């Protein structure tokens, strides 16, 4: 049996250069980039809806519910990349049953469940009036579904509706720090790995959080525009401009954080810097400076800063940000993080398997990644069948 085994785990998609320790490979593949990417989108989408509910940005009203439901769709998919990545996915319940709280990953269950509760509760309060109306009129399976979704609460009196609104505001307010914790903790997973120089920075939770917000807001802009076009609804310019305005400010913060991180590494010039600088300025030049920063941050920022923001300009900026943030995840996790050997004497390059030649290359390959990245949209489409996601609600 042992004779059949030819490859070490990770060997197929790792190209080694100069001296790396024998056991070093790219162990964290594209799924470990997709995981923080989707988690970031959750945080961003939720924060967007909270800007309406908590801070009273009325221009965001047409997208407040949509971004809330979208964050649920994303939240459900967020942990699935991890299942694709684990070599023993059937043991994932050990995370819940025997969490080792000294590990950042172990707090996942607590953080995730808390956040899931907040999002579900807020959606329920936001759609309660609609659900009750449907439960009383719809027939068949849908009728049963809506009846179950009411949780037995049919009271739509003035007082009850007032309570709903109060709950939404409270949940949205509590949700903002929770979104921060959810994504800050993802940043902590990487920032706390002391053996990887490019990750080990206390800025990491904040870098991840800010890039999360920009990706989430950008995705909401893009999805809102596409969905409105598809369903031939009017695109509310006000809403797009408000989202664009938020996006602009968060891009500035995100860019500053990321730039400060690299500047500090360079100025401190620790033992690893001579090699890390080769990774950043040579190997990752196009991916990081051109795609992640140039196309993903600076160009959209210029487009958003120009006066009289149009829908097209906001849409293009959003697409650039969405791609840029995904590049950032790949650059941090595969490129700069695992790209530098712990021996500080060699490099590793990640080659995403495209054509699957084995179960392993399928599971950690291109098609699995596409499947995972499209799953939230499929979920959103399903949710839209049950709840009027894109309708600007008149009841609050």
């Amino acid at each position, binding site marked *: *049996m*042992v*004779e059949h*085994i*030819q*490859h*070490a*785990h*990770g*060997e197929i998609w790792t190209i080694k250069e*100069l*001296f*790396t*320790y*024998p*056991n*070093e*490979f790219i*162990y*964290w593949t594209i799924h470990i980039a997709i995981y923080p990417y989707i988690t970031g989108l959750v945080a961003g989408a939720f924060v967007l809806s909270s800007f309406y509910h908590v801070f009273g940005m009325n221009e965001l009203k047409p997208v407040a519910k949509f971004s809330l439901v979208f964050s649920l769709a994303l939240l459900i998919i967020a942990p699935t990349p*991890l299942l694709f*990545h*684990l*070599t*023993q*996915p059937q*043991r*994932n319940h*050990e*995370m819940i049953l*025997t*969490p*080792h709280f*000294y*590990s*950042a*990953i*172990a707090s*996942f269950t607590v953080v995730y469940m808390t956040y899931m509760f907040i999002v579900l509760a807020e959606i329920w309060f936001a759609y309660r009036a609609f659900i009750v109306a449907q439960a009383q009129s719809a027939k068949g399976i849908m009728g049963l579904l809506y009846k179950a979704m009411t949780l037995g609460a049919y009271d739509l009196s003035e007082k009850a509706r007032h309570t709903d609104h109060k709950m939404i505001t409270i949940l949205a307010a509590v949700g903002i720090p929770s979104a921060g914790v959810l994504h800050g903790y993802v940043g902590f*997973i990487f920032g*706390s*790995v*002391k*053996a*990887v120089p490019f990750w080990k920075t206390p800025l990491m939770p904040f870098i991840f959080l800010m890039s999360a917000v920009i990706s989430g807001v950008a995705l909401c802009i893009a999805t809102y525009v596409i969905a409105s076009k598809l369903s031939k609804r009017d695109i509310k310019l006000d809403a797009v401009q408000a989202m664009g305005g938020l996006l602009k400010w968060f891009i500035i913060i995100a860019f500053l954080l990321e730039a400060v991180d690299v500047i500090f590494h360079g100025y401190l010039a620790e033992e690893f810097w001579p090699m890390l600088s080769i990774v950043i300025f040579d190997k990752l030049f196009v991916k990081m400076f051109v795609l992640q920063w140039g196309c993903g941050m600076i160009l959209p920022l210029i487009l958003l800063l120009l006066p009289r923001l149009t829908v097209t300009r906001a849409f293009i900026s959003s697409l650039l940000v969405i791609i840029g943030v995904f590049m950032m995840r790949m650059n941090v996790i595969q490129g700069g993080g*695992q790209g530098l*050997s*712990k*021996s*500080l*004497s060699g490099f590793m390059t990640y080659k995403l398997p495209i054509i699957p030649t084995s179960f392993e290359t399928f599971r950690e390959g291109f098609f699995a990644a596409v499947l995972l990245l499209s799953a939230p949209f499929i979920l959103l489409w399903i949710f839209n069948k049950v709840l009027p996601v894109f309708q600007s609600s008149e009841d609050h």
Partner: protein
Amino acid sequence: MMSTRQISRNKGGDGVKQSRRDILKLGAITIAGAVIPLSAFELLTPEALASTKKHGAGKRWGFVVNATKCVGCGMCVKACKTENEVPFDVNVSRTWVERYVQLKDGEVIIDSPKEARNGFIKNDPQGRQVKEEDIAKGFFVPKLCNQCEKPSCVQVCPVGATYRTEDGVVLVDRTWCIGCAYCVQNCPYGARFIHPDPKVNVAEKCTFCYHRITKGLNSACSDACAFGARKIGDINDPESEVHKLITNNRVMVLKPEYGNEPMVFYIGLDHIVR
């Protein structure tokens, strides 16, 4: 007393408000009270206890590598792979040997072809042809898990599947590990990998041959070393060879800056060693 107060306030007509405040007060006391046993629960985790314990009491397995004695034959790697059933032809290993060649112009060439399982048989560091007269110095450094006193791999395991035994060896529970590779990422020494056998397929590492040393045998690598470069034993036992080697020599550990407190001590390290 409380009832008198309530009664007197009930007369004022806002008794309901007062009792709510009392309930809140009681709740706060309950939470505060609950924090005490909860913090005790925290203190009693094995890691917290272990970190407060000074080694020096019981048995503590340690290792001494005399790098000046290593000739790069690779017999230790061969023995380890065979003993521990790590597929021989796959490019991972619990132990490996590195070759360091420093040229007269200062350039350092490091390699460990196929973890040195077949030994170093040619003068071809990193596949390059190096003239003998250009070489300033060259030597071999055997590597293995450092069985750290404060293992950063154990710290990050999300399910607690990897742990440090009382006698200081870091092990992995193969029936428990979920294979997230967080431990692999957080080992500064590159000692961990995912076991390539689909029947195992979890985090794998050097165990100091725990199954052997606990029965009074040596680790497979130290038995296989004909030159006495690898020694294993109880570093807390003043009579043991490793204890004597550590106390009678100037020894170094790899990457002390990470704070892991490695328990593999080296004689004859050089500043170019990574």
